[in-house]
């Protein structure tokens, strides 16, 4: 699974960071980003799907399911 955070859409709700801190990072301004160039370890895919479903800005894009 490969994902990215659309920086234009992300407004810093930080739901992704709360749900999958192993995958997402968040800076001092609330901007989220994906670690590991967007590649998600298999074991964390379910957590990431939850993050996608809980982002109020629809900012997490799944590039490769």
């Amino acid at each position, binding site marked *: 699974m490969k994902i990215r955070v659309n920086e234009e859409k992300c*407004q*810093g*709700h*930080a*739901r992704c*960071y*709360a749900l999958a801190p192993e995958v997402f990072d*968040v*800076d*001092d*301004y*609330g901007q989220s980003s994906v670690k590991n160039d967007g590649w998600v370890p298999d074991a964390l895919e379910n957590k990431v799907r*939850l993050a996608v*479903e*809980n*982002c*109020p*800005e*629809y900012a997490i894009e799944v590039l490769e399911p």
Partner: protein
Amino acid sequence: MGQLKPVEDWTTDFEVLDDGYIHDPFTVWDKLRDTCPVAHTNRRGSTWLLTTYEDVTAAAHDIATFSSLDIGVIPAVEDEFEPLPYGLPPIGADPPLHTWTRRLLLPWFSHKRVDGYEEMTRDLCNKLIDGFIAEGHADAAAGYAQQIPVRVIAKILGVPEELSDTFTGWVRDVLEFADVEERAIRGRDGILGFLLEQMPLRKEDPRGDLISELLHTEHDGEKVEDSVVLGIAALVLIAGIDTTWSAIGSSLWHLATNPDDTARLVLEPELMDSAVEEFLRAYSPVTMARVVAENTDFKGCPMAKGDKVLMNFPSANRDPAAFDRADEVVLDREHNRHVAFGSGIHRCAGSNLARMELKVALEEWLRRIPEFHVAEGAEVTWAGGQVRGPRSVPVVF
């Protein structure tokens, strides 16, 4: 506020301060979403009320049409007093002022900073509980929820915690009693007068707090103007107190009246994170206003320049088109794209802090008071308007 004209038609003459509506807005929202999702009133000027998730989030993202230069659900008192030429940035500003003032503010509420406030919040909750636990009863709203956020905000602003009751009174004046002119003025003048006194002290002798730092910050090579610092500090005080206390109070009211949910949270504390999000969704406190910047047609409604638009985030979060079982509190809800903290560029800057305070307040309460219910015959009272939440929740345990 019993003297308000009764509402006969919620679609054409809604009244956000109606007693019945404040107590139970849910049935009105359900009816409006089904029959007239964009309602209107001429009370306090031409004002539109958006009730669906789709409409509320669309308006929140259309910052060109819906300006943040007036965000008050109840119009501010107009008089001579005008020390805030820029209002309350960033929430009460449009870009570009919004953009750079928000960047000044956000790091104060980052995860790292908020983690640093958790221990003091936990201590504070326990001290409050120590004060009433032996009595077997307490007011979960006035004696607990209301006491927590104000003290954390005082710490961040660097102002004396002993003034907490005074701050709470001013913030209630500004938000809860915005419709009562003398109280709205008293609260506003209290907050701004206090901050105007504090600012010169921090200019001379910076103390590392938010006010001191902002006063010594530059933007585009120039010192940030005092009136901008004043606006930001006033915003933090107003927005950081009533909102979170209302969320804590509503959550405790829910638990006091739903013993099955209380028992489940006590037995399954790992549900706390999703429960916090669910309480935020089901009992979102905050409605924000916008002002129409240019004549526009919104879903067939002719909105005129200068009209008010109320973005009803609490109703959006109960919209069955956006949430399964929208009217139920589901502690382990997995998909929860709620917009309790708004949507778009004005997402609540303090959301990390609010979430931490709500979680810690509930954890410590449930750890020490795992069984409680509303006292028999006691009256639970609510406030509404810009911020909805309980003002008194007498409980026994």
